[in-house]
């Protein structure tokens, strides 16, 4: 378990003090994939770097494996860091060392006996799918391959936590997906807790269990990823969600609406049950889809549809109640009836 208690980070600049992280507390469970979302400058990177004390928080404590890291210094802190892996947006591999030597470096930090190093390096490279690149220098690798080496290095000393600092932001969409799959695999197989920061909602949707949204150094919304996607509360959260699930309609369409415009939300299995077709058959209403999508958030469907219902007002009312009865969440957006 990873506990962040009342972390505040204040930077002293020439213009005065700037609060990077403002009294943030989080509890992240063992084996969880936790996402921290926000725009640049929101304090998410500072918060992440406070976890392994790359930046020392001004106040508050970070408890990893039952140990308060903010109380540690020098050699003790270094030893604690062996159990917290970290990967970076720009990989930060040692350019003058081969892939194998880069991983060896991490193993040496933990004083791994020399006779075990070689086997462990091979094992790690196999896990990230880069066995044949052991003697290659980082400059000859693609971005995705460099990040795989970064992951192998981070996992070298079997950490309990993996921190990901915008780990996929420098990668193309296809490579991003493959890196996210690898992270998910590692999370499942090694039961390692992953904390990642990102501004890409796709990343969160793909692998996170829970998430927080940060703004101006504060956590403004926290919850299970599925719930936040289904029902974002804060305007900023809604903005982030809309980057993945967008319901912008052209004004001309809105002008032409003559019936009742509703937003229908299906959570989980209900999304696949054909509630809408049942409704149209059972009640004398016409349903006209204006927009719709079914998002799969960690394989759990989330259906969101914008539709216009036309017919006798009574029938429309009953149709809406019917959908609600079947587990849908219906929100009336515009009523021209």
């Amino acid at each position, binding site marked *: 378990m990873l506990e962040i208690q009342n972390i505040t980070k204040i930077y002293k600049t020439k213009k005065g003090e700037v609060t990077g992280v403002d009294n943030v507390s989080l509890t992240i469970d063992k084996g969880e994939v936790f996402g921290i979302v926000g725009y640049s400058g929101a304090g998410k990177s500072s918060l992440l770097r406070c976890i392994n004390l*790359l930046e020392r928080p001004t106040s508050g404590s970070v408890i990893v494996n039952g140990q308060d890291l903010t109380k540690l210094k020098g050699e003790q802190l270094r030893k604690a*860091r062996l159990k917290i*892996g970290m990967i970076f947006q720009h990989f930060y591999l040692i350019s*003058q*060392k081969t892939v194998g030597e880069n991983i060896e*470096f991490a193993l*040496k930090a933990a004083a791994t006996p020399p006779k075990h190093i070689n086997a462990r390096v091979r094992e790690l490279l196999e896990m990230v799918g880069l066995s044949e690149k052991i003697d290659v220098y*980082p*400059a000859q690798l693609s971005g995705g391959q460099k990040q795989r080496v970064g992951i192998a290095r981070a996992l070298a000393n079997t950490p309990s936590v993996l921190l990901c600092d915008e780990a996929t932001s420098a990668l193309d969409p296809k490579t991003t997906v493959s890196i996210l799959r690898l992270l998910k695999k590692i999370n499942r197989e090694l039961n390692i807790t992953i904390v990642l920061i990102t501004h890409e909602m796709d990343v969160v949707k793909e692998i996170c269990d829970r998430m927080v949204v940060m703004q101006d150094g504060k956590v403004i919304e926290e919850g299970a990823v599925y719930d936040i996607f289904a029902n974002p509360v804060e305007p900023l959260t809604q903005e982030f969600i809309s980057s993945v699930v967008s319901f912008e309609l052209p004004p001309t369409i809105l002008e032409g609406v003559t019936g009742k415009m509703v937003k229908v939300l299906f959570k989980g299995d209900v999304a696949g049950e054909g509630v809408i077709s049942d409704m149209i058959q059972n009640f004398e209403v016409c349903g006209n889809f204006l927009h719709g999508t079914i998002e799969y958030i960690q394989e759990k469907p989330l259906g969101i549809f914008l539709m216009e219902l036309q017919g006798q007002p009574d029938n429309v009312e009953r149709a809406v109640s019917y959908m609600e009865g079947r587990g849908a969440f219906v929100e009336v957006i515009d009523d021209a009836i």
Partner: protein
Amino acid sequence: MLFDFEHFISMLPDVWKAFGETLLMIGISLSISLLIGLPLGIILFVTSKGLFLRNRFLNGVLGFIVNLVRSIPYIILLVALFPLTKILVGDTIGPVAASVSLSVAAIPFFARLVETSMREIDKGVIEASIAVGATPWMIVKDVLLPEAKSGIIQGVTMTIISLVAYSAMAGIIGGGGIGDLAIRFGYYRYDNTIMIATVVILIIIVQIIQFAGDALSKAIDKR
């Protein structure tokens, strides 16, 4: 005649001896400045602001000394160090004596070049090493030195070239070497042949060093 070839041939033993003395001076002072300048440069870097062995006092003191020595023109340093030279070598004349002031001048020069080449390293790589739990010594040995290697070799090249120039100056006070030859013959005796020969030799030496340094620095860089 501007260049008397026969005269040059007759002077060859002297030229050859001077060349040897220059190599001796550069060899001694280069070895000493690498030996002391490299650790000094590393200390200057790792104790600077924002780095893992930040030490304001040590960094300030060392930085001050380095700047102090570097602000003294070599020709003055040469004379000012006579007492020290006398203690260390027992003499103030000759290539070994000249090596004392050459080393003192080259140490801070090379140290700053080492520091600068380490500054070129992406801070993120150092940070990633800290995050991985590496010891300060491991970071120096396995991150800073390999990553700055190419730049350090260029620093060595620049140091040698400066030493060639300084060693010629050491000739003025009887340090021996090519500079000494140029002063004694080219300047005091208006011997153009020796003057031209020494200039050409110096040009060739510098060109070879620069070429070799560039080639080596490029060859070992894996980026």
